[in-house]
């Protein structure tokens, strides 16, 4: 009797499982292509008090059309994301050697994250667009100052994708295409 009951219930259970599988696997399937990866969970970096690391920032100069390196000390952490953020923040603060900053002073960094494929997503506030000079040369300087500074200092960054207020944008001011990640252009750096 008990065995029969168990067998019946077992049978019902199998039917239910089959039905559940059908339920979950059926329906209209839409392929959703991820473009922007979710930011990885923020791990609180272990700051090592007193320890710093040197990064190289790239600025413009009145002398020529190239990007010029300037070394800067940032607090050393065990988080690449944290150090990359500090690098961009230092870049926006401008040069301490009299080089020219290719950023509107009002622009701020909102967010930065790095995918396992080595693409850094650098998200600026809207001022980087609104206060921009919007000429071809100006846009190229702004973009490659960020791209080169990040790719040069961090091995885990190969490409840089620029976002404005968390969103993709076509251009900064009508010229350079922001809808694809940038590879660094070291030709722009002064020899």
């Amino acid at each position, binding site marked *: 009797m*008990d065995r029969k009951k168990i067998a019946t219930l*077992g049978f019902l259970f199998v039917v239910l499982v089959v039905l559940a599988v059908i339920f979950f696997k059926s329906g209209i399937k839409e392929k959703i292509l*991820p*473009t922007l990866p979710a930011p990885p969970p923020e791990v609180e970096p272990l700051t090592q008090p007193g320890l710093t690391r040197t990064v190289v920032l790239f600025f413009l100069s*009145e002398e020529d059309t190239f990007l010029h390196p300037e070394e800067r000390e940032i607090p050393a952490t065990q988080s690449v994301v944290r150090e990359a953020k500090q690098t961009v923040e230092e870049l926006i603060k401008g040069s301490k050697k009299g080089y020219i900053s290719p950023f509107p002073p009002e622009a701020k960094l909102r967010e930065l994250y790095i995918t396992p494929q080595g693409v850094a997503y650098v998200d600026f506030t809207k001022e980087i667009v609104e206060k921009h000079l919007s*000429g*071809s040369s100006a846009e190229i300087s702004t973009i490659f100052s960020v791209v080169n500074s990040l790719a040069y200092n961090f091995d885990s960054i190969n490409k840089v994708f620029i976002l404005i207020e968390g969103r*993709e944008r076509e251009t900064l001011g*009508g010229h350079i295409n922001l809808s694809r990640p940038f590879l660094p252009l070291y030709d722009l750096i002064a020899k």
Partner: protein
Amino acid sequence: MSCSCLSKKLIAGVVLSLFLSMTSGSQIQPFVKLSVRDYEDFSRIIIEPSFPLSFEIEKGSSFLLVKIAIDVPFRIQKDPFESRIVRSFGWTKGRDYYILTIKTKPVDFSYDYFVLNNPTQLVIDFYEVDEEGRRGREADKEIKSRLDSALSREKEDSAPQEIKTIIVDPGHGGMEPGAKGKFGTLEKDITLAIALKLKTFIERNMPVRVVLTRTGDTSVSLERRAAIANYNKADLFVSIHANSSFRKDAHGSETFFLSNESTDDEARRLAYLENNPADFDEGIGGDSQDELTMILWDMAQSAYLKESSTFAETIQGELNFLLRTKDRGIKQAPFKVLTGVACPAVLVEIAFISNPEEERKMKTEWFQNNVVEAIYRGLENYINLYYRK
């Protein structure tokens, strides 16, 4: 007995949890219902989300993007449809939004939208822009065949015999002034003044048609500028800009062509071919045709980089000679306006509007006429190189 009770309980538990997971699953997961219906003179799409709707709409050539703010996955309910205007839907995930791409059959179209409440529905009506829609479809075919031949080029066979149409693109316009000079000169005004002069000059001296991407102070999207060139079966494309730099001293003229992104593009093309091997053997049909069009439009210019580089050189040489400006040379950069253009294309930075001396110069008739003449001579040199062998 006790054993069977236990198993009963276990089974009941499993059944209950299954039941719960099924119902809770369908209750919690948000969904979006999509429906398409054709009316006499328009097609209507209704987007009905189960959650509060916050959206943005952006139009492109042959597609409309609807960016919907939501950061959790959702189900999509859609019935099969047939429409004159709507071709297909695609979803792309962003960080805290999804983008619905509505691909349209005509390259150009106009649209209206409104929101209904209770339940929330976003209604988008698509209208065909007759003349251009038709031309767009023809242009699509034209571009595809030109790109196919360009990609596997036997140069002698497929090189065009003569230049018929030149596109002149005055940078910026309307709501988008471009760079500003210290004395208030706007890039959009300088570029338009030169473009209008250039059109007259070319048409007076060459048996070609010149099409401007704008003739007044109007906003024209960058994609639309490329689309105008492609609709008109452009043979050459010249975009005119005035430069600006953070460096006060920056001065001089330069000519850009698109930077080489062919490694990425080639990879995408190969990926496409791998996934759709039949397309190239047996022709293309249905939705896959649309996908191919999008990929090719996006990489249109990469098939013409060599010609564009020569074109840039012929113009740059004349510019510095006539303008007596500093030669900044020819350069490559990923200019948005150039990416979709399916013919040799350059972007000329006539001088720096951010440099007060050059700003003053570029407002003069002398300077503007010399820019016109320099570009004209560059065009002529290029045509002599490629067309009159």
